[in-house]
């Protein structure tokens, strides 16, 4: 197992820049997830780490060794593909043993390693089956088996659960994390599904348009989004944004939104007058008739334990997550109270989060711009 260090990594396909200056470190034994919408460059980054694409610039270090320009087979990594890439002309045993065969390992040893791996993944009863007859989850396990049998420096996974049914997916998310807890393999996992990312990752990098918008733990990413893109991409429903204008001075503790004063975490930097946005997650909004921030109920979405209420304000629809017991009727006028401790402030022009008191404890929640 090894640490993965990516420095100023860049990839351009002609005029199209797929990855712009990526920097991150995946520590030894960490489960790292690259999250982003399709076309954001996450798969390209993964393929560069694997050696399936060569970078236009930058460096990739694997366990301290520069592998940027090495061939895939010389990097000692394992890759799990979205479509698993199980060889249809080989049975399960041969598929799992295939990487060992490349190393010229004696067949008796291949046999015992394959069986050991199959036991670990609980697929030892399938070893002599053809891969074409396997169910989705078992295919996934065979693909994982082929990856772990070699004990490589790290695992790279490209949306490995993308083709599975929802129920299998939840099961495999659990299984993958459990497997990781047992073997502690450095893992880079690519997905567009925030639930997979949040539930499995030690660290997440959120990517958009070839740029890493934020790198941090799932908690940091959710609680202290570094950019409006991250705030909007993570969370369901996503963070609400309320516009407000004017500059901010260091030490400010209050802003004015739609004529209502809103307490905010203490601002830690001076911001020149500009279009700003206040970000608030739906679960941090309460109904409070005393609040000056008002709106009319537009619609509700009942979810059992909670409900999502859409409130039409002067600045568009705001969604609040409130207890399911509250009875609401469309058209009712309500006041919205915001949990000041959990607010985020953004500069609308750059999308960047303003440094406030919530960032005081954060050491690596910063966006990694250029």
């Amino acid at each position, binding site marked *: 197992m090894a640490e993965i260090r990516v420095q100023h990594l860049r990839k351009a396909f002609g005029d199209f820049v797929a990855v712009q200056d990526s920097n991150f470190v995946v520590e030894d034994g960490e489960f790292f997830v690259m999250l982003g919408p399709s076309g954001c460059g996450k798969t390209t980054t993964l393929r560069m780490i694997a050696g399936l694409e060569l970078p236009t610039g930058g460096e990739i270090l694997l366990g301290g060794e520069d592998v940027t320009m090495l061939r895939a087979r010389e990097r000692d990594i394992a890759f799990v593909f*979205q479509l698993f*890439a199980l060889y249809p002309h080989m049975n399960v045993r041969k598929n799992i043993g*295939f990487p060992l065969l490349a190393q010229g390992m004696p067949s008796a040893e291949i046999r015992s390693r394959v069986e050991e791996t199959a036991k670990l993944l609980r697929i030892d009863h399938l070893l002599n089956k053809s891969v074409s007859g396997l169910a989705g989850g078992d295919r996934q396990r065979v693909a994982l088996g082929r990856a772990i049998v070699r004990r490589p420096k790290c695992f790279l996974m490209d949306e490995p659960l993308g083709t599975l049914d929802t129920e299998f997916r939840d099961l495999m998310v659990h299984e993958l994390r459990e497997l990781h807890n047992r073997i502690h393999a450095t893992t880079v996992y690519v997905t567009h599904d925030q639930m997979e990312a949040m539930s499995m990752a030690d660290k997440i990098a959120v990517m958009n348009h070839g740029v890493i918008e934020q790198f941090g733990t799932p908690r940091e990413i959710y609680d202290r989004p570094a950019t409006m893109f991250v705030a909007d991409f993570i969370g369901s429903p996503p963070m609400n944004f309320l516009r407000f204008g004017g500059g901010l001075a260091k030490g400010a503790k209050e802003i004015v939104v739609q004529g209502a004063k809103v307490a905010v975490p203490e601002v830690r930097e001076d911001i020149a007058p500009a279009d700003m946005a206040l970000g608030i997650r739906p679960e941090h909004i309460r109904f409070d008739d005393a609040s000056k921030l008002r709106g009319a109920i537009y619609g509700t979405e009942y979810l059992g334990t909670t409900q999502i209420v859409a409130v039409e304000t002067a600045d568009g629809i705001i969604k609040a997550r409130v207890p399911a017991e509250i009875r609401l009727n469309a058209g009712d006028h309500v006041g919205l109270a915001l949990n000041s401790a959990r607010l985020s402030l953004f500069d609308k022009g750059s999308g960047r989060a303003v440094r406030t008191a919530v960032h005081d404890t954060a050491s690596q929640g910063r966006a990694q711009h250029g």
Partner: protein
Amino acid sequence: MSLTTAHSVVAPSAGSKRIAGAIIIAYALISIVPLLWIFATSFKTPPDSIAYPPKIVFQPSIEGYCNLFTTRTRQTPEYINSLGPATGFCDETVRKRNMVIAGPSNFLPRFVNSLIIAFGSTFCAVFLGTLSAYGFSRFKVPLADDLLFFILSTRFMPPIAVAIPIYLMYRELGLSDTALGMILLYTAVNVSLAVWLLKGFIDEIPREYEEAAMIDGYTRLQAFWRTVLPQATTGIAATAIFCLIFAWNEYAFAALLTSGTAQTAPPFIPTIIGEGGQDWPAVAAGTTIFLVPILVFTILLRKQLLRGITFGAVRK
């Protein structure tokens, strides 16, 4: 997923299946009549073969096969009677027509030429075709589209249109009437077909297979050999049959460029007619034997061929 229930909107109804079946059977019968006629003729005696009205029921004889494999000379009955007892069935049959066997005919060597040239050129075309198709499919080849168009353009006119230049070139190069020359020629004609057919097949094989193999420690060539080729067998088999059928049946170039040692069976078989009258049973026997290799090859590969020509239409 299989949709074979009665309610399927895509599955044909029983009625349309019957009509389709009837059409296919009728077509198959019409197609097989000439073949059956050739087969029957090969077992007729020369008089039976030209009898009018044609004989459907006849006494089978292998005289045609005897004549195919031998050359004979006409002798006086006195001379034939002076010979010892006939050494075999063919000897006996031939003597009844006042002839004696002079030696083996050229059919067998011509047939062997056909085998060498057809299989040799098929192997070369499929080998080159597979490698180039893989290259076009997987790598960024500069001007790939133009190159592929150029490769295809060699099929825009009938190959025979370039017969004269090829004849002149071959004479200069010393390739006239050589097996090597014919293999090169048929390979050149077939390789465009092979590249195009195989590119389609290889395009359908996800790259992830080779990428997985290359990450797992194999070189690209090993990955190609171990993961792409096994999955391309269907396409390769289908392509090989098409190439073989062309090379096996090709007549015009063979007639023009081969006359002796490298002559293939197609131009040879008609020459049988001239030897000792219109010997239709011998011609039919030659044709029948000529059909056997392609029949065997096609039957052996029929599963792949069927999957091959429906490839892309049905996906797993």
